[in-house]
Structures are given as C-alpha cells and as structure tokens.
C-alpha cells in the first residue's frame, strides 16, 4: 500500500530526536486520534539550520514527519512557511487516501513550530494558525 519512498522514510526516518533550547517547537494532533507530531526548529538568521521531530502515529505519520523535516531543513523561514501537505505527498511518491491526513498533520506541525518561533521573536503568526481539532474527525479533506 505504501510507496517505496514512504517505506524508506518509515524504516530510516531522518531527523528523529529533540533539540535542546529549540528556537521553535510545535506539537499537533492528539493521542485520541492516534497521531501526535512534535517538531523542533533551530533557526539562525531566519534559516532553519536544524530540525528534529518526534511522532506518535502510524507508518505514514512517521514517514511524513521525516519528509517534512527534510524538506524544510536548510531552508529560509519564508520558504518553510510555504510547505504544503501536497508537497510532502509528492516527495513521498504518494500516500494512500486514508493517510492523506498524516501529510496535513506534518504541514501543520511545521507551521506550529514556525508560529512558536514567530511568537518568540515577536513576529505576527496569525496566518500560521492551524486547526487544532482531531484530524480524523474534522473531516475537511485537504488535497
């Protein structure tokens, strides 16, 4: 059911871990829905110099976390803000329909971490606000 890319990122996820004294931390999802993603950012001169994640969730949740962190690593904050779940899906060569929500979660985790950074440095984060509901239940299909 999963593409080879997904299997790869699940089997050998990139950027697993925590960052002490991170410049931005975002956590989305909840245990009830079966997915929690937490992303840590280290940012220097608006460049994401390091990123780590921890994810509780299915194989796709882990793979999308890995891919999402990979996609924003080394990027400027302005570029990272533009990350979409679609980009994550494409980078993974697709996701099964019931797993699309994982990519949404990954996008939202990145945004939540960026929002945290914005807040810390006093920048307006209102356009980064994410749906805090349970993704399974919120039912608006992104993609």
């Amino acid at each position, binding site marked *: 059911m999963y593409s080879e890319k997904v299997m790869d990122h699940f089997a050998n996820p990139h950027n697993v871990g*925590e960052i002490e004294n991170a410049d931005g931390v975002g956590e989305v999802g909840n245990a009830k829905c*079966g*997915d929690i993603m937490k992303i840590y950012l280290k940012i220097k001169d608006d460049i994401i110099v390091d990123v780590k994640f*921890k994810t*509780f*969730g*299915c*194989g796709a949740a882990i793979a999308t976390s890995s891919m999402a962190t990979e996609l924003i690593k080394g990027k400027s904050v302005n570029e990272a803000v533009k990350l979409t779940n679609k980009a994550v899906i494409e980078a993974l060569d697709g996701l099964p329909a*019931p797993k699309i929500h994982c990519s949404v979660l990954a996008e939202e985790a990145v945004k939540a971490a960026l929002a945290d950074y914005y807040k810390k440095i006093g920048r307006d984060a209102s356009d980064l606000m994410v749906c805090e509901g349970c993704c399974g239940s919120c039912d608006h299909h992104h993609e």
Partner: protein
Amino acid sequence: MSDKEKKLIYVDNAATTKVSKSVIEAMLPYMETYYGNPSSQLYSLGREAKAALEKARQGVAELLGCDANEIIFTSGGTEADNWAIKGTAYATKGRHIITSKIEHHAILHTLDALIKQGFEVTYLDVYDNGIVRPEDLEKAIREDTILITVMYANNEIGTIQPIKALAEIARKHKIPFFTDAVQAVGKLPINVKELGVDMLSLSGHKIHAPKGIGALYIRKGVRLSNLIEGGGQERGKRSGTENVAGVIALEQALREAVADLTDKDKVGKLRDYLADKLIKIPYSRINGDIKNRLDENLNMSFEFIEGEGLIMLLDMNGICASTGSACSTSSLEPSHVLRALGLPHEICHGSLRISLSADNTFEEMDYIAEKVTWAVNRLRMMSPLYERKLKEERSK
C-alpha cells in the same frame, strides 16, 4: 523473495490460515476428476459429487454434534452471519435484537443495515475483561426481541463468551439464539446440542481450509428466510451450485482441527511463553480476560506507540502479525473491541494481536519476543508521548 518466504513467521491465524497440504490433497480430486454438478443425479459424475458432498456434510455434522440436514454450506462466515441475522429478522414479527459490543463487523454491519430498516439493537457490555454477563442479557430482553446474537470467541482478544448460559436464557424466553463461532470452531470443543444454540456460523479459511467456504448450523425447527434464491440446492435453503471441493476441504480441515484439540496444550504453552516475555516490556498490558480466552490468542498494548508502525517493523523482520489500531485498516477509528473494554484511545492505538496455530514453534516465539521488544523501543524513541513520560518520571 524466496529467501524472505522461508523466514516468514506467520502469527496472524485469526485473520486467515495457510491451507494445509492434506486439505489441498482432499479437495483436488473434486476439481480434476469428480467435477460433476451434484444436481446432476442421472450420471455417475454428478452422483459421485453429490455423494461426496453429503458425506462431508455428515462429517461436519458429526464433528459439531448435530444432524446432517442441520448443516447448510455458505460462501464463508460473513454470508452465514448475514443470513442468520437477516433471515431471522425477515421471518419473524418483532423489531428488537440483542448482541454484544465486540461482535465482528459481519454482525455489526448487518445489524446496522437492519437498524436503517427500523429494527432496534441492544449492545451488551463486555466490561474490562471482554466478557458478556448473562444477567445483562436477561435484563435486555424485551417483548419484541426476535434474536440474540453473541459471538463465541472474539477475533481480536480471543475472549470466550458464556454461550451455554446465554443460550439457556434465550431458550427460557423462546428467543432464537445465534452464535458467530468463526473463531471458536476448531479451537474449542463444540457440540451444538450441548451448547443449546439455535444457529452457529463457521468459516473454512480460519481453520486451514480455503477462503470462500463456510457453514451455518440451523437447528431443526428454526425458521429462517432465504438470503440467496435459485436452483434449490441445500434443500432449498441456499441456492447456487455447491462448492463441492470447498466443502470437502472444510470437512477435512475441521476433522483435523478437532483431532488436534486433544493436544491443544501446545499452542497455549507457546502463547504463555511469548506473553511472559512480552509483558516484561515496561508499560505493556494484556487486553481481555487472561483465562477465558482462546489458547491461540495474545492481544497486548504497548503505551506511547501506535500499532501500525509496530506491525510494519515486524513485517520488515519477516513476522506477520496484526493490530487493532487506528491506521491498520482504511478506517481511522481504533478497534471497537478494545474501546469496548474501556481502554483509553492511546492504549487502543498501540495494540498487537498475535494469533498462533499448531505450526508455530518456541524458536519463533523467542524471535518474535526479541523483535517486538526492539520495535517497541525503537518507536518509543520517536514518540513525543514517551518523551513526556520520561520527563515526568525524571522530575519525580
């Protein structure tokens, strides 16, 4: 691939089973040589097929403790379940049906269809051990109750229901009692007369027969409207050219399973051996009653992780197991069975189901224990929930 095949450890026998060699041998002649249509009574090839079919029916009946004409063959457990429920609902006046919270979807979704047509369903609680209480059934019965349907053994947690006691209550109230015994047949000694049930379903592919064959026991005198009409096969109760080879396979498989019941200790010992090892993993638990369950079944939850990833890591190591967790199917809901035990969502999500067969070995259990321990650890290292837990512990 051939290398991987050799190493495969299959412990998902509640999902389906390997067709045993002897079963294949038994059925092949009915595809290659005695391929006649059992309805063609006027020539040898048809009579031979019919004779084999009826001999197998007799065999199944004896193994279940009933008469041959109380056994009707179906295309599997799901059809038998649908038939027993819809067949009773449409043949009877009254709108109320009683079941349990942990039935298979073949039961629950059939009931959903009936609910849309105006039927009402009461779902009996199974408490934290996964077992229905007879006194709850007694209380749930209404004037217009037309059917009680409670499964014999659960497919996820293996818990065994007190069918005899439940059936007795049903009989007292003159309400037909049906049990979905798809997971119990071949694993527990079953005599339908002693059990006192009116109907019982079973499925071949759970006991080393092929997929696509099953049966419904219908006690003489029970009224059931037909689900499938046509040429009048199966004494007019279930039309369609009989799956002769499948029936032969089912009988052979059931015969072998019942014979194996005598040394069933082995599977229970394997299961306990594995459970003892896995329970050593911190923050783990066994789901469902420890004693009143199938020897074949082990269902555990590991906190802070999600089951799908666990199964995928096991698959990478050649182990075929399953989870009742959210993402394991196309539905995102965690197992209704684990939820019915009152477990919080996060624990439901991290479940592992191991279902053994007599083919498994202690060496395999060692290997499984090692790989599960490794995989749980690995997933916990990635888990923000585990991170939180560790921080809580440290700050104590």
